């Protein structure tokens, strides 16, 4: 286990920021930590990186207790904090060399060069960090987190505030790195998790409300099957009433309806078909709606609110 968290609790002034959460992360996994603002993502990460001590419970990184072996844990973790704080008056190269010397890495100069080319900072390496655009700063942040070749990477909202191109680049970078490292990243963008992560944990109000493989989770938190059907004309009156017997009906556009039901996919399809035949309607289009993680996220975080 790369990361193991047992009954972790953090209390700020009598309020539980995280409340007895437990999870394991195997090495080599890219795990997305999802949750609305203030759910406890950052707090959990701060405990794992030894910035804050837990109020109760245990957290281990590569089998080392974050409280007892703090220095050793910090050596094995690469951390990109929220908002990516950097020394804006330092130069990119100078900063990476400083971080390298803090980690006491041996081949500092070659390692800095390697990180610069890995993160695509060649053209910016002699600039002051304060002059860089946000996307490039994020790369500097990632470079400093990986310079000592840590086995575990903890990234707190690595793509927040970037434009779509930069987001794509940073994601690509993280996925590349993630092939041989354990990555725990937090975000509140669903597509990000679907695109990058092998596993998702959804946290809400300090509790883990969902934890599973990205694909699995859709089934696990199934919100029923939704069928999108387009008819040749608008349905009204008693027709609509009999359609509503099949499930929850929502009118999407003039002639398109979504029917949500807990029934099996095939059954729902044939029932809607029979309904159309019975009332002499023509179905021009019929398809199942894909439940995105976004909906699952909305569901699990709302029901607890």
């Amino acid at each position: 286990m790369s990361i193991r968290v047992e009954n972790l609790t953090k209390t700020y002034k009598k309020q539980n920021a995280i409340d007895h959460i437990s999870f394991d992360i195997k090495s080599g996994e890219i795990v997305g930590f999802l949750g609305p603002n203030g759910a406890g993502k950052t707090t959990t990460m701060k405990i794992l990186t030894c910035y804050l001590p837990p109020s109760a419970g245990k957290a281990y990184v590569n089998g080392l207790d974050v409280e007892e072996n703090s220095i050793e844990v910090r050596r094995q973790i690469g951390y990109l904090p929220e908002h990516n704080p950097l020394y804006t008056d330092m130069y990119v190269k100078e900063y990476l060399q400083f971080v390298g010397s803090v980690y006491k890495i041996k081949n500092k100069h070659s390692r800095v060069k390697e990180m610069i080319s890995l993160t695509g900072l060649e053209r910016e390496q002699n600039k002051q960090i304060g002059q860089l655009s946000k996307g490039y700063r994020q790369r500097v942040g990632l470079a400093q987190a990986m310079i000592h070749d840590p086995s575990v990477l903890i990234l707190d909202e690595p793509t927040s505030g970037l434009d779509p191109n930069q987001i794509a680049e940073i994601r690509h970078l993280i996925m590349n790195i993630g092939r041989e490292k354990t990555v725990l990243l937090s975000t509140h963008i669903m597509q990000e998790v679907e695109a990058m992560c092998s596993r998702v944990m959804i946290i809400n109000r300090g509790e883990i409300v969902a934890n599973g493989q990205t694909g699995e989770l859709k089934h696990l938190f199934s919100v029923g099957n939704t069928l999108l059907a387009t008819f040749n004309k608008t349905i009204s009156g008693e027709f609509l009433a009999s359609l509503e017997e099949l499930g929850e009906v929502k009118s999407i556009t003039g002639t398109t309806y979504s029917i949500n039901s807990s029934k099996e996919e095939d059954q729902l399809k044939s029932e809607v078909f029979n309904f159309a035949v019975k009332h002499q309607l023509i179905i021009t289009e019929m398809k199942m709606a894909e439940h995105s993680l976004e909906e699952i996220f909305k569901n699990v975080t709302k029901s607890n609110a």
Partner: protein
Amino acid sequence: MLSILQKEIRSFLSSLIAIIVIVVFLVANGLFIWVFKETNLLDQGYANIDPLFELAPIIFIFLISAITMRSFSEEKRNGTFETLTTKPVTDMSIILGKYFAGLIIVIFSILPTLLYYYTVHTLAFPKGNVDTGALWGSYLGLVMLSAGYVSIGLFASVITDNQIVSFIVSMFLCFFFYSVFEYLSSFDFLKNSEFYIEWLGINHHYRNISRGIVDTRDIVYFISLIVFFIWLTKIIFNSRKW
């Protein structure tokens, strides 16, 4: 610790703080010692540089506060405090790295004044007739006093993320330790404990050492002062964990 010390000194130099402090210190002292009528050495006729040692503690109250005010305040404000404290370094090595970086800058500002010593040494009649013992004592005293100020400044910096607040608190504390105890001791109602109150202040010990008498008690006082403030700094440093 060394990597942090190095980084701090680089940032002092690149932000010009170090240069400004050294220049201001030397210009101010230069004016008082060689130019201004009331205090200049040439008219005074004694072969010593006492005005320097009278003046430096006052100037340093401002300058050292200016050097140390950003040490932790800036890191806290920018959030780099979090990046730094999640690196595999102990809290103490961060604090000491910053402490010695500040102290080194201060010592560099004192060094050029050795030229004053050389001047006085040459001008003295007969040549070289200078109370060298008292002079080295004074330098030692000044370094000890600066070391104390830097620890006070560091503490003032760790308590806030606002550099101005840190600057003002640091000036106040330096001034307080430098001379307030001495003023207090002259109050009538404190007559009985006069000596002990004066003993708490920096000036009492600074003057002792300046005379060229290096008493271990004075050295111990300065070391205790430094250790005390670094210890307080360490406690506040960890306040996020409370």
